[in-house]
């Protein structure tokens, strides 16, 4: 059982281009669909609004952690904080990390990792469970692969 999400995507753009899209707060806001109230600086907490249709009344907040130019960008936030009646500030945060690797011909491989889900309160996950019930079968395959044999 993993407490993290990991993704990897290949982009036909240079690491400098991808770095800017991730760390320039205006560019980040554009593809992530949020407003951001100021530049990303390690240690700083940025706030804004979610721009997804139907979620505009919700605020968004992240605390920037690391910014190693064209290599690593990370922040902490409250994942999937969609209920305006819930005070998420008292809940544990997850950590989001982007790693960039240059590829031949000016491309970039981007690794995403979000970790720390084991500390997220159960009622929040139950909410998501009702919205997205995939069942146990898929997870079992993962465990079987993990241990090498389902027997």
């Amino acid at each position, binding site marked *: 059982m993993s407490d993290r999400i990991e993704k990897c995507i290949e982009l036909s753009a240079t690491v400098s281009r991808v770095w800017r899209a991730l760390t320039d707060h205006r560019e980040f806001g554009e593809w*992530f669909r949020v407003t951001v109230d100021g530049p990303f600086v390690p240690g700083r907490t940025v706030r804004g609004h979610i721009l997804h249709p139907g979620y505009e009344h919700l605020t968004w907040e992240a605390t920037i952690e690391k910014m190693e130019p064209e290599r690593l960008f990370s922040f902490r936030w409250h994942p999937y904080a969609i209920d305006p009646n819930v005070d998420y*500030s008292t809940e544990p945060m997850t950590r989001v990390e982007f790693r960039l690797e240059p590829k031949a011909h000016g491309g970039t491989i*981007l690794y995403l990792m979000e970790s720390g889900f084991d500390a997220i309160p159960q009622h929040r996950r139950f909410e998501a469970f009702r919205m997205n019930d995939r069942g146990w079968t898929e*997870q079992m395959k993962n465990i079987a692969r993990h241990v090498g044999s389902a027997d």
Partner: protein
Amino acid sequence: MSAVPIEPSPELSARALIFAALGDETRLALVARLSGGTPLSISRLTEGSALTRQAITKHLRVLESAGVVRSARAGRESQFEFRPDAFNELRSYLDHVSAQWDDALARLKSFVER
């Protein structure tokens, strides 16, 4: 903001137990065997294992206290059975967040490649 105090709660300790219970290769292998749905006895679960019956029993009790498996007497022996509910909802939550990242990364891709 980055130093949010984590209040102890029954939910948090229950979840910590599940993660601790699964954070071991032997126990993960036991869960994989029991996940077929058929309750199995300690003898059956010890078969083919390099571990002793006592060691396997100890691992099963850890899984039981985390709610991942439950035991029932069947004649003279305890049988162990898998309980998927304990972490179905955790998996589904991660699936949901994962799907959101797929969307966000697809938007990033079209953004930097345009």
